[in-house]
């Protein structure tokens, strides 16, 4: 500590105050830059993936139709990945998201098969009914995890099987065709050449980001995942937080289900069976810590776009789905390894004592 600091401390308390304030401001700025560092990685990856496939086959990859197709296919997977991210933030996982989305999609397709010519209001009713079915799935997950106290892995493994099983019972294992015409029109709609489905995805992502960063619930959710014991001693009720988490992940999955039938007017119990891995890969690649406490919606959105680019790129390169699956597995494990390494480096780096601690 220099002499001038000493003088300042004794002579002018306001200056000390200012000093502290500057210090805390700098700290928060540094932490924000660090956060954006993770985002930067994601942005670089997105641009790199785009560049690679553009170079490999520019005529097909840059075709506006191809870009539109990517923007229409990504939203459902992106919403499911955000749903999984929410569960991971609390230190859990939700394996039932795809089954819930299919439940919503099948409800909508099933209802519209019974009521083929409904108007706008009827369509809305059918969509709301489908959404409620998905939400019910979230409620069941929430009850099992928060009230009964089953670990999220087992609870959602079980409900995934039950929801999927009920879907098989309802459809008899067949594909259901046909949804209300308005829904299909919505699925094909665009605003300024941006597909409506993609806009729904972005708006929902912004809404979830606001809940996470600007509301008490979001704060509690992060704290629950970062340190459950500390959260409990701070007066946060784990039952409520967990219930809210799985309710939100159910709602997001239900919304994804609506997008599925809006994009493609069919629904079946085994739709998206490869999505369970994909959405976990996206959540992890987007910087979510699977042990809880850290994750950003923006990271997951960018990861969704990246994976969609990779998938489309693989298709253009005429690589099979199995090769894409291998790539997914590799991306997952490499990201996990890199994240774990950097986390460990941070943990072992000696922490500088803050001025308050030094003063004590």
């Amino acid at each position, binding site marked *: 500590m220099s002499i001038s600091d000493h003088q300042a401390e004794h002579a002018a308390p306001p200056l000390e105050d200012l000093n502290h304030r500057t210090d805390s401001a700098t700290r928060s700025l540094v932490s924000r830059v660090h956060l954006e560092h993770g985002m930067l990685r994601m942005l670089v990856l997105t641009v790199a993936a785009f560049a690679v496939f553009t170079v490999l086959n520019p005529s097909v990859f840059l075709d506006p139709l191809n870009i539109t197709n990517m923007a229409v296919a990504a939203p459902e997977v992106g919403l499911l990945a955000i749903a999984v991210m929410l569960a991971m933030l609390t230190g859990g*996982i939700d394996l039932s998201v795809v089954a819930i989305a299919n439940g919503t999609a099948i409800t909508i397709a099933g209802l519209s098969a019974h009521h083929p010519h409904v108007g706008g209001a009827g369509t809305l009713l059918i969509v709301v009914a489908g959404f409620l079915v998905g939400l019910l799935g979230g409620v069941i997950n929430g009850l*099992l995890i928060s009230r*009964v*106290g*089953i*670990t999220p*892995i*087992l*609870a959602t*493994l*079980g*409900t*995934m*099987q*039950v929801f*999927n*099983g*009920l879907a*098989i*019972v309802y459809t*008899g*294992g067949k594909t259901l065709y046909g949804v209300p015409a308005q829904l299909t029109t919505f699925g094909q709609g665009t605003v300024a050449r941006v597909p409506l489905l993609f806009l729904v995805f972005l708006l929902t992502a912004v809404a979830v980001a606001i809940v996470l960063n600007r509301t008490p619930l979001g704060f509690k959710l992060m704290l629950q995942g970062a340190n459950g014991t500390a959260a409990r001693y701070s007066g946060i009720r784990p039952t409520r937080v967990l219930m809210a988490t799985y309710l939100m992940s159910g709602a997001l999955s239900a919304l994804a289900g609506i997008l599925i039938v809006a994009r493609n007017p069919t629904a079946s119990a085994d739709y998206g069976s*490869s999505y*369970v*891995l994909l959405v*976990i*890969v996206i959540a*992890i690649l987007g910087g979510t810590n*699977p*042990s809880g406490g850290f994750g950003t919606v923006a990271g997951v959105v960018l990861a969704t776009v990246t994976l969609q680019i990779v998938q489309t790129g693989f298709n253009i390169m005429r690589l*099979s789905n*199995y*090769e894409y*699956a*291998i790539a*997914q*597995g*590799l991306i*997952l*494990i490499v990201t*996990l*390894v890199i994240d*774990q*390494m950097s986390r460990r480096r941070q943990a072992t780096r000696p922490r500088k004592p803050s001025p308050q601690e030094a003063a004590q």
Partner: protein
Amino acid sequence: MSRPTLARVRGANNEGLVVLVLVALSVAMTILNPEFLSLNNLFSVVRSSLVPTVLALGVLMVIIAGGIDVSFTAIAIFAAYSTVLWVGQDSVGLVVLLPIACAIGALLGLVNGVVISKLRLPTLIVTLGTSTMFKGVLIAFVGAKYIADLPRAMAGLGNANLLSIASGKEVANLHIFVVPVALLCLLVWWVLSRTMWGRSLYAYGGDPEAARRAGFSVVRAQVLLYTAVGVLAAIGGLMHVTLSRNANPQDLVGSELDIIAAVVLGGASIFGGRGSVLGTVLGVFLIHLIQNSLILAGIPSVWQRTAVGAILLVGVSVQALSAKRSSRKVFAYADEEQVAA
């Protein structure tokens, strides 16, 4: 009945409870459909439980060590299919087939073990990733064809029976594989209860930090664990191919949950540190008996998946609720001690 006796009947891991459910189900089913009690039906349930039992032994070890593995089915079919593809119809015996499959299984298991233990990553997510990679590599690079002609040594085993008992018009056949499966169960039981490595799995699953401080080499134990699970999976895969008399690379993957459900129902705790071979065998048998009962009771097969999921949920709910109760008891004790002090 006094309390200690009741506790003994219930068993350390609720094995008694599983037996009770098994008996109740059997009685109910016998009343519903007398055919249920026939030797023929019993042997067919045993036959369908053979492969799942072998796979479940591996899952049991992982769960005891506090992990969860979903890649064992991919390893099983990878090892079995590539062995069959490689050997072709050569008249090599099991002496050659089995070591090849086991080596492939061990290698894939080693990949899991190294990634999980060296980097301390979440087991579910790692194995989900490796599972997809193994299946992808199998189909994209090894082979995607259905193989109907098995190596002669395996083709012959498909119909080999240990016991053939004529009952009425039908002949009840007990497949020869009950012998190796029983031996494997005994082996795993012996390893888990009598070897230092087996005990280290319980220790690690119960409390990783305590195990480390007690001097167990956690990395070595885990690498060995996932390698062993790979070998068990490979044996299970070979048995599956032998019993179904064809090698289909699309088989097995997707049935992980049924096996994990069986192990959890058999009393193994998903938090690690608890579980027994006896409970696991009973759990596998219970799941297959229930599936068999659904068919005999005339319930459409579309309900099978729902049934297994519901059984899993009920089983883990009972565990979770009793865990909650016992944790409250611990707190009550602590309070009493405080009062006493």
